[in-house]
């Protein structure tokens, strides 16, 4: 019912432990997590270290709610499939990433109507409780994706591939 993912690069136990403690209080909700190389013992959620791209997409598609680190792969796939997503950004000060760019990503992505940002375990519990209270009803369709910015980018890349604009790029 809930699909969680922390990517594959570094452990992100703050998210996993928060999810596990919430699952302990909510035994009726099944949680499946792609947990990377976490060493923590998680008793209340089902985990797998890594998923193939195909399985990742299938799991995400089957879920009612996605809980994720603020990685663009998860954010874009969730938006594409019209899934609500709770993001917890990785922080450098806890050794969860090399820098704090996930914080920047989360702040920007919070503008999407399917995105909720949770900074810590407590906020994650609150966001999960709110999602359950709403019966996992997603507030959005998939309108957010394929926004107006995509078409011009594709056009620029296509022109570059076929060498239709001078290198160095005259401004549009």
């Amino acid at each position, binding site marked *: 019912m809930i699909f969680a993912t922390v*990517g*594959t*690069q570094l452990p992100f136990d703050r998210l996993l432990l928060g999810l596990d403690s919430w699952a302990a209080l909510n035994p009726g909700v099944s949680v499946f997590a792609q947990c990377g190389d976490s060493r923590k013992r998680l008793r209340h959620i089902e985990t797998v270290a890594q998923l*193939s*791209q*195909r399985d990742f*997409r299938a799991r995400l598609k089957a879920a009612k709610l996605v809980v994720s680190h*603020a*990685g*663009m*792969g*998860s*954010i*874009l*796939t969730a*938006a594409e499939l019209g899934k609500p997503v709770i993001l917890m950004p990785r922080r450098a000060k806890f050794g969860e990433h*090399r820098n704090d*760019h*996930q914080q*920047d*990503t989360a*702040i*920007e992505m919070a503008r999407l109507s399917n995105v909720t940002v949770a900074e810590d375990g407590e906020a994650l519990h609150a966001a999960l409780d709110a999602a359950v209270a709403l019966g996992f009803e997603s507030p959005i369709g998939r309108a*957010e*994706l394929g*926004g107006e*910015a*995509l*078409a*011009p*980018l*594709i*056009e*620029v*890349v*296509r022109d*570059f*591939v*076929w*060498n239709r604009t001078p*290198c*160095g*790029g005259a401004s*549009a």
Partner: protein
Amino acid sequence: MFTTSRSRPVLLAVASGGGHWVQMQRLRAAFDGADVHYATTDASAVEATRGGCVHVYPDANKQTPLRLMLCLIRLAWIVLRVRPDVVVSTGAAGGFLAIRIARLMGARTMFIDSIANARELSISARLSLGVADRVLSQWPRVAELSGAEYRGAVL
């Protein structure tokens, strides 16, 4: 330009697994008609990708210097074999390395920084500024501050 034997450009599209790869997939329409080769770090992309040959290289970053060497060697091999007219990358470190190598062989190169970098360019994008023909940021403000171009975004 293309050599006489080629009627369509040979494109090498380089992206690490995860978000970099998902962003590259969102640009696929831009590659229609080209001879497309992908290079990525996630071997499971091979079964999930239609249209185009997929090459795999080891993932690495500046904290893993030995793997970075292996990544460089593998990418050099891929670039030599594919002989691309054009290299497009959505990051990360491997994309910069592929662009560096491909430039030596005269390919046109474009680095598109991940939309995740909403406040400043990634290190790979900054390094690419001195090497690639074009470096794009997906955020107007970041482009303005860094000397990259803004030409749109995947979201």
